[in-house]
Structures are given as structure tokens and as C-alpha cells.
């Protein structure tokens, strides 16, 4: 069992920076280089924003739980909301010419770019969980990428 850190916060945009800083700091503690740690921070930031806006639908009384776990060379983050759920498959491709000028719709796209694996799971009666995983690449070793699975 790896080290675990858990945050449970109300759905407030004001907490986004805090969550980002904790994510980036723990990634640095897990020996990710600075650029990779920033990418992890950005992915967790987007997942937290997503949980507030689309999961809890800006209901400030609902909470978002963010759980960080380092297990071997894998850094894993679970972001759970308490909302009615959302359809993560309905996101548009922000790279399509008709979407490039859209002011929104890049959050999940960023998450998928910044970590190795992103998976969504509906929790029965409890909202949605977003799982983010990033593999630590050690010098002198070819790392096995985390198998991408679609849920």
C-alpha cells in the first residue's frame, strides 16, 4: 500500500489553486521532474474544476474529494464529486476547426494530455469518480506505459 493523502473540500473555485499546489507538491515529493509535476497539477486542477462545474453543478454545499496515492512508480489521483452525474462522452473535440473558437470544452482534453491515463466511473448514487494516473519514468530504464483503458 502506498502513501495516501486525501482532501475533502466544498465546491468552491477558490480551492482550485490549493488542490493544484497540493497535487504538484506531492508529485515533486514522488520524484517527478518539475515539468511533469506541473502537468499533474494541471490535470488535477481540471478534474477538480470539472467536478465542481459538471459534477456538483456549482452547488457549493456539495463536496469534492481528492485522493492522492503513490504506489511504486505510479502516481494516482481520484477526484470524486457528489453530483447527479454527467456524460463524459459528450465532450467535443476542441481541435476540430468548428470548435477551436469555443471558449470552453478543453478540460477533459487537457487531463488526457497531461497524464498517462484518465478514467471516469459513475458511483451509484454518489456522483462520479475521475481517475488520473501518471507513471514515473526513471533514468536508465524504459518504463512500461500504463495500459490505457476506456470505461
Amino acid at each position, binding site marked *: 500500500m502506498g502513501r495516501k493523502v486525501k482532501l475533502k473540500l466544498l465546491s468552491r473555485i477558490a480551492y482550485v489553486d490549493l488542490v493544484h499546489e497540493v497535487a504538484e507538491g506531492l508529485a515533486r515529493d514522488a520524484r517527478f521532474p518539475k515539468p511533469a509535476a506541473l502537468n499533474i497539477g494541471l490535470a488535477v*486542477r*481540471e478534474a477538480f474544476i470539472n467536478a465542481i462545474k459538471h459534477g456538483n453543478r456549482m452547488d457549493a454545499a456539495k463536496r469534492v474529494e481528492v485522493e492522492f496515492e503513490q504506489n511504486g512508480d505510479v502516481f494516482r489521483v481520484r477526484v470524486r464529486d457528489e453530483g447527479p452525474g454527467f456524460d463524459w462522452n459528450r465532450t467535443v473535440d*476542441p*481541435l476540430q476547426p468548428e470548435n477551436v473558437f469555443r*471558449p470552453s470544452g478543453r478540460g477533459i*482534453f487537457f487531463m488526457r*494530455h497531461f497524464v498517462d491515463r484518465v478514467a471516469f466511473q459513475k458511483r451509484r448514487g454518489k456522483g462520479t469518480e475521475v481517475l488520473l494516473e501518471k507513471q514515473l519514468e526513471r533514468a536508465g530504464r524504459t518504463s512500461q506505459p500504463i495500459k490505457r483503458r476506456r470505461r
Partner: protein
Amino acid sequence: MKANVRHHGKVTVVDLSGKITIGDGDIKLREAVNALLEEGRKSILLNMGGVSYMDSAGIGELVACYKRATEKGASLKLLNPTGKVQDLLVLTKLQEIFEIFRDEREALTSF
């Protein structure tokens, strides 16, 4: 995020610093550009050299500023995006939309 405005002839340069993210930088960027458009400024250069990173809300606001400027007949261009910001512009294909300059003098004469 901070936004300092300076004028070079008809061109307005906005020196941005810090991060352009949800709830703070995105709002300040919107306010700064909206104020210039309301003053009737037609040539706006956003100096991104001091911006450390942006999130999806910041990128979204940058796109929205570009659209509003275009609708008002103004030009909005970018100067010297830093490593992470440059990465995000490439990732989102926005580097194909924005005119991006490395040299301020060259940017100023492009309007």
C-alpha cells in the same frame, strides 16, 4: 495575474504576468481587454512573457478576447509566450489562429 498597459503609437501593449487561470487571471484578462476595446483601441498586443501557465479557463478567455476583438474590428496578437503557455497554444492549435511574435519591435510594426 497582473496586467499593465502601455501605449506605443496606435498599438496598446498589455504586459501580463502570473498565471491565467479560473476565477482570477481569466477575469482580469477579460476586464483588461474589454476596457481597451471600449476605449476604441484597435491594435492590442498581449505580452505573454511573464505568464507562467494557463488552464482551460484561461485558454478559453484568450479565445473569447480574440473573438470580441475581431467582432469590434480590432486586432489582438501575442508576444513571447513562455514554454508552458507556448506548449498549450500548440496543443490546442491556437498557434494557427493567433499571430505570435518573439520580438516586440517586429510585433509593433506588424499592425
